[in-house]
């Protein structure tokens, strides 16, 4: 079972919950051998689960995305690349084709639609992805290089790299008894969606305060509303704030 531990807000206890959960499962006799827990720190902009789990990294590789590069000899400045790019990462100014790698989402639209084949792709190294062990727990994390944006592709590559595919139950799925825990980034933007995509369930960690409730609603909307995942809830620092989260969860049918 693949579970993303998320929240709408940073600092609510996602990592505390995810780490505690995986350590507790690792101590259970039934989770040994092929069913040993797998932990992914998907907060690639600021991974911190390693501070608690202290993994020994055994394998490391650079990863990146393919960004377009224009051959000025073949380019006819037809502007087709600029027209198809939904992210405004390509532009043609007079007789110069420009590419802005920072905006590129590596969708390949420009490469595929260039009528003269003037665009080829080069690897833009953005990050390192690592895997290892923390005792009986298999561990993996991604780390973005300084100055690089776009965490979602890293998370996608990290998941593809370490979550074994089982053809009998579907790509990226694991046998039902193997716990896979994903420590999601804060917020509700693309990196969070990428972390939750394809998972079996989302566990939301929150605090019982008004501001956390606001962000919790957004996270619940993404997990359940957009991705159709069952959602569970953990309240951290219970005793502060008010009863707003309780009332909300009762109304929405979200179990603790």
């Amino acid at each position, binding site marked *: *079972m693949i579970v993303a531990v998320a929240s709408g807000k940073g600092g609510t206890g996602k990592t505390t919950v995810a780490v*505690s959960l995986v350590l507790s499962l690792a101590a259970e006799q039934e989770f040994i051998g092929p069913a040993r827990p797998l932990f992914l720190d998907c907060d690639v902009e600021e991974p911190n689960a390693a501070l608690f789990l202290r993994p020994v990294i055994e394998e490391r590789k650079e990863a990146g995305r393919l960004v377009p590069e224009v051959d000025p000899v073949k380019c006819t400045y037809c502007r087709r690349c600029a027209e198809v790019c939904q992210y405004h990462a390509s532009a043609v100014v007079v007789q110069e084709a420009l590419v802005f790698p920072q905006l590129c989402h590596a969708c390949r639209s420009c490469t595929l639609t260039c009528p003269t084949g003037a665009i080829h792709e080069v690897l833009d190294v953005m990050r390192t992805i690592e895997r290892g062990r923390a005792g009986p727990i298999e561990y993996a994390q991604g780390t973005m290089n300084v100055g690089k944006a776009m965490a979602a592709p890293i998370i996608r590559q990290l998941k593809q790299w370490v979550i074994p595919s089982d053809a009998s139950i579907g790509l990226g799925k694991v046998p039902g008894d193997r716990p896979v825990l994903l420590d999601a980034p804060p917020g509700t933007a693309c990196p969070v969606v990428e972390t939750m995509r394809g998972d079996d369930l989302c566990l939301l960690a929150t605090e019982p305060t008004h501001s956390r409730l606001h962000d919790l609603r957004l996270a619940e909307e993404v997990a359940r509303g957009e991705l159709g995942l069952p959602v569970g809830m953990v309240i951290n620092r219970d005793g502060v704030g008010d009863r707003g989260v309780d009332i909300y969860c009762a109304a929405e049918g979200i179990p603790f």
Partner: protein
Amino acid sequence: MRIPLERRITEACSEGMPLVEALPAYRERFVELWRGLEALRQTGERE
């Protein structure tokens, strides 16, 4: 599951010690949480 606002938990986290190492009694509660999630998943699939 509810984790109370408790000084011991906060101090453990600030020292890089996982909650369940500082307070081992929580291990069982987290395993129960996992069982609850498994049940929730099955309910979700049925829906």
